[in-house]
């Protein structure tokens, strides 16, 4: 059967439930958590290998036919994203074994990590707009608990800001869902797409599109809606901020890609100027914000914003090459960003601090950590032959073909400024002499460090593979873009075989 589409949702659900039942046995929870993450990765890769053959698999839950029941559907974009979730989930689950303190682990870290993964996979796989809202809430609740877990003062402050602004986004999303449902009478995305392309109620729907743009904009942290992100992402332990930095904002980008390519493609010209402006402004503000920061993970948090700008840029240009660039950028950025956050966590473990002025001397003490930082950092800045180069190359080329020259200038300068930020971290944390005063770090165990390094190493290696052997991945991204630009395939897959 088509259980394969559901496995990425069911595996973390069962893992989380089992972790709840084994609350008093943290050791078993750790085994379960890693096993569950491996299973998600395997399921995601299986799904991707099926989708790569051009097949779109859809399942009607409960056997209720398509526009009435809930549809779960995996096309190329969804499958790629789910496979990446599997990778990040596994990396973070392994890293957390020693990267998260025992107290947090015994207060349900593993259960909530899997609840978060379930929410993310669900959002990527659902074919129903209201269901997408539900998955957003699952994600929000799980990530709220993760941010607040441990209950330190800074954490709670970050968590409040995080949850408040995201609740506003959810409310807006729900309002847009209501507007769509009252005008069209369906929430199945494929059915919506079919009705919208023929309906003459488009003026009302532009309103819904606008509200959705703001709702997803908050989730994706675009200009000027990004304030919650730098206020909260650096507060929890590195493993938690890594999984959030890697995945959560990208769900917002995914939702924009899906909704605007599927539902509002018919008048994309109408929203295009907005997207172009947002893309440029997001890139610039993110990178300038980073320049003013002095914390390792704070800098990285601001860079998430500027990277989101690049992804929106691809969506704004809306040609096959640009969308392929966005998809490639999503994958590249998730890998590189998570890996950088994990490295920041290791550095913090060595030095007891996340502040750049306390770091320093890491190059002399830990050469390997320096290399581990350098690969994703250079990749983020877009240095060939790493993955970020190809992602930026595709976007800039697409932008040139479409004649958006101003955006090219912005993208180039932001790339340079990204490099500047990375050199700042490099100079302060790695190159500079060891500072005289520095907080005393917790005792370290070589075995613990090994388990923390392993996932960062794997992600850095993936980033190199994605860069050096870019062609097959890029072809896949291109196929994804073509699938996105021909929504009929998606619509038929959902509504056709019922």
């Amino acid at each position, binding site marked *: 059967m088509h259980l394969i589409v559901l496995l990425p949702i069911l595996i973390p659900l069962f893992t989380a439930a*089992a972790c709840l039942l084994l609350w008093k046995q943290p050791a078993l929870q750790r085994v379960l958590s890693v096993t569950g993450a491996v299973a998600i990765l395997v399921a995601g890769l299986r799904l991707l290998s099926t989708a790569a053959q051009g097949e779109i698999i859809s399942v009607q839950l409960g056997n209720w036919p398509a526009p009435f029941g809930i549809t779960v559907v995996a096309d190329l974009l969804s499958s790629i994203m789910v496979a990446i979730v599997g990778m990040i989930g596994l990396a973070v689950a392994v890293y957390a074994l020693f990267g998260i303190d025992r107290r947090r682990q015994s207060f349900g870290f593993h259960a909530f990590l899997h609840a978060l993964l379930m929410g993310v996979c669900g959002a990527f796989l659902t074919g129903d707009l209201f269901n997408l809202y539900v998955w957003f809430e699952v994600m929000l609740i799980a990530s709220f608990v993760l941010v607040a877990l441990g209950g330190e003062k800074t954490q709670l402050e970050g968590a409040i800001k995080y949850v408040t602004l995201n609740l506003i986004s959810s409310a807006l999303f729900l309002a847009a869902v209501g507007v769509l449902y009252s005008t069209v009478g369906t929430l199945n995305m494929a059915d919506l797409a079919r009705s919208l392309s023929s309906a003459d109620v488009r003026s009302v729907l532009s309103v819904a599109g606008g509200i959705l743009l703001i709702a997803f904009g908050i989730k994706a942290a675009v200009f000027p809606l990004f304030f919650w992100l730098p206020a909260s992402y650096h507060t929890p332990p590195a493993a938690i901020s890594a999984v959030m930095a890697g995945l959560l904002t990208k769900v917002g980008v995914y939702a924009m890609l899906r909704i605007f390519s599927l539902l509002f493609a018919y008048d994309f010209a109408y929203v295009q100027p907005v997207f172009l402006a947002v893309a440029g402004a997001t890139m610039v503000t993110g990178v300038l914000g980073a320049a003013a920061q002095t914390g390792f993970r704070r800098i990285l948090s601001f860079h998430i914003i500027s990277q989101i700008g690049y992804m929106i840029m691809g969506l704004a240009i809306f040609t096959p090459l640009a969308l392929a660039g966005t998809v490639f950028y999503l994958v590249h950025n998730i890998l590189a960003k998570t890996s950088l956050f994990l490295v920041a966590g290791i550095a913090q473990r060595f030095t007891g601090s996340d502040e750049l002025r306390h770091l320093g001397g890491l190059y002399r003490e830990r050469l390997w950590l320096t290399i581990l930082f350098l690969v994703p950092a250079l990749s983020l800045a877009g240095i060939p032959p790493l993955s970020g180069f190809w992602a930026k190359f595709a976007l800039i080329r697409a932008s040139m073909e479409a004649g958006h020259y101003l955006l090219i200038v912005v993208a180039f300068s932001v790339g340079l400024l990204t490099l500047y930020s990375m050199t700042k971290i490099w100079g302060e944390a790695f190159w500079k002499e060891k500072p005289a005063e520095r907080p005393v770090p917790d005792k370290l165990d070589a075995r613990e460090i090994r388990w923390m390094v392993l996932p960062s190493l794997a992600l850095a290696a993936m980033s190199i593979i994605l860069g050096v052997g870019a062609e097959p991945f890029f072809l896949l991204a291109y196929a994804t873009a073509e699938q996105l630009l021909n929504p009929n395939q998606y619509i038929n897959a959902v509504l056709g075989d019922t």
Partner: protein
Amino acid sequence: MSSLVLSTATRYLLPVLLMFSVFLLIRGHNEPGGGFVGGLTAAAAFALFAIASGVERARQMLWFHPRTLLGTGLLFAAGAGLLAVTAGSPYMTGLWTSFEMPAVGKLGTPLVFDVGVYLVVVGMVLMIVLELAEE
């Protein structure tokens, strides 16, 4: 702040409320009701008992930790959907036996799902209520 009236009344109310919650759960099969309201009623019953006789005794009375109920409920609800997969239908398809139970009607996987929801709701609400009552 123990009140004789409340604790005496609760002694009689608790079993009635619990039976009513099961009634709601089973009735929800074909008519208004279901696992969610049933679970809320059961949780309210235990919350009432906690107010009347103290949180400690309520936890003893509950026998399981609310968290365990929550986890078991999730497994029930998600597992009920899997049964359909083994029969070759899409996930969550309702499977029905031909066995007709008086007052309940036909038995099937949706009932298992509802029991799961019931447990999740009881576990979730009591986890919050008992925790807050202990503060």
